[in-house]
């Protein structure tokens, strides 16, 4: 279970201090939670704060009762937090197999590495020895990023907009990947997304705008309201 207590994150901008996350309180103990909201509202920042990429300015983060607030990225990863980047990173020289092996934390046979790639719809034989470099498209990289999270198989997996940069055909497959992950996972999944189809498979939805939680509840409660306002309505919620 993940718990955020009074979490704030501030940065220094040109116009002085800016608060990106404002006193966030959240208790997430469901299998599949979607975090949504307008661009610039603080969703990705929240994901990065959970993974330890950004340190909190104030507040506390508990993971299965353990205070991880001051833990590094590595310590959190070892404890069971995984994070899929919105824009996957490229590595000259490292192959898909290298990264899947590092993610699994143990030597994998080719067929084991291939299993994860097949899960995300990549023809494993064609990909396993390819370098994670500019020759891979954005969509391919996103799928490899998801395969890495699967290979880790940790208690908590955080996905930052997995649909960004993916074409429509791939997107439909992606939904199936997450549906399957939802069914099979032994841990929890947090997914940052704008997509109705992803929100629709979530157990709970969190709405974040302007650095604050504007809504939290079951999808039957939150989704109809979001759809009524339309995605564009996120940014100009009348309070």
């Amino acid at each position, binding site marked *: 279970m993940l718990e955020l207590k009074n979490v704030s994150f501030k940065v220094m901008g040109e116009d002085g201090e800016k608060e990106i996350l404002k006193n966030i309180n959240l208790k997430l103990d469901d299998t599949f939670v979607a975090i949504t909201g307008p661009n610039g509202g603080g969703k990705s920042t929240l994901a990065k704060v959970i*993974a330890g*990429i950004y340190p909190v300015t104030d507040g506390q983060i508990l993971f299965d009762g353990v205070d991880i607030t001051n833990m*590094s*990225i*590595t310590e959190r*990863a*070892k404890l069971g*937090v*995984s*994070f899929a*980047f919105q824009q*996957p*990173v490229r*590595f*000259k*020289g*490292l*192959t898909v197999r*290298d*990264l899947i092996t*590092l*993610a699994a*934390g143990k030597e994998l046979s080719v067929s084991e590495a291939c299993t994860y790639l097949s899960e995300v719809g990549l023809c494993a034989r064609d990909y396993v020895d390819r370098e994670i470099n500019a020759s891979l498209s954005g969509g391919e990289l996103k799928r490899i990023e998801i395969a*890495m999270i699967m290979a*880790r198989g940790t208690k908590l997996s955080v996905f930052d907009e997995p649909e960004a940069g993916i074409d429509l055909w791939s997107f439909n497959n992606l939904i199936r990947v997450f549906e399957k992950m939802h069914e099979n996972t032994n841990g929890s999944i947090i997914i940052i997304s704008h997509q109705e189809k992803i929100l629709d498979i979530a157990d709970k939805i969190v709405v974040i705008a302007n650095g604050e939680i504007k809504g939290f509840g079951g999808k039957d409660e939150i989704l109809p309201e979001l759809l009524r306002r339309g995605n564009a309505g996120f940014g100009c919620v009348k309070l």
Partner: protein
Amino acid sequence: MDTIEKGLLEKVADLHDIPEGAYNIRANGALGGRHTTANIDIVSKKDKPGIDIIIKPNTKNESVHIPVIITKTGLDDLVYNDFYIGENADVTIIAGCGIHNTGDKKSSHDGIHTFHVGKNAKIKYVERHYGKGEGTGENIMNPTTVIEIDDGGYMEMETTQIKGIDSTIRVTTAKLGNESKLVIRESLMTHGKQYAKTDFTVDLNGEDSSANVISRSVAKEESYQVFYSNINGNNKCAGHTECDAIIMDKARVSAIPEITANHIDASLIHEAAIGKIAGEQLMKLMTLGLTEQEAEEQIVNGFLK
């Protein structure tokens, strides 16, 4: 061979013991062992130190190992090796030099290798340089490679220097005939106060000749690397040179690629990029459970692989 010599041999030639096929082992400036085959002859030079390696035409799937190992401090070893690769041959040549210098005097090896690649011959040349030693004496290697590829010939050169060489000036020149091809891959890592200079000059003289010169290097601590690459397109040809370097700590790297087209149908490209390891790359690997140092090692090893 003692364990130190065996260790060097493993580092520079992947050999755990005496190799199969043709070989010539040079240890501390003297002959340490030689074996020839029906198709590959090795003959000591009469006028200067070194050997001639003569590979008969049409020799296929054979290999030659010519490692050099130095375990004495204060030894300056100079050697001239000439390779004559017969027409239509297809062979692998594994060279390499390992220095284990425990003393306080400099030890050096200057290898001058000349390749005469015959018509339609195909060779893969692997060269590794490695240094070690607890002493204060410097390990110095200055390899010179001279390549001449006849019509339709192909040469692939893999040159690696990963550790322990304090100073190196690596000079490679190549002249290519019609429809011949040269591929050079350099992997280089320097650390401490090491200095490494690489200087490639390729003359694409033949019609439809091509060359691809790729260097990947990592400069750590206070080391300094200079990369020169000069491709001259003197006929209808294609040339590409690429230098990609990672700098760390207080290291410095200069990349000076140069391409000259002396023919209207010469097509030449150069690329050069130098930069530190991206923070995002480290972060990604840390989210997989690696420490920052482990992540750095993975990135460097992958880059030089």
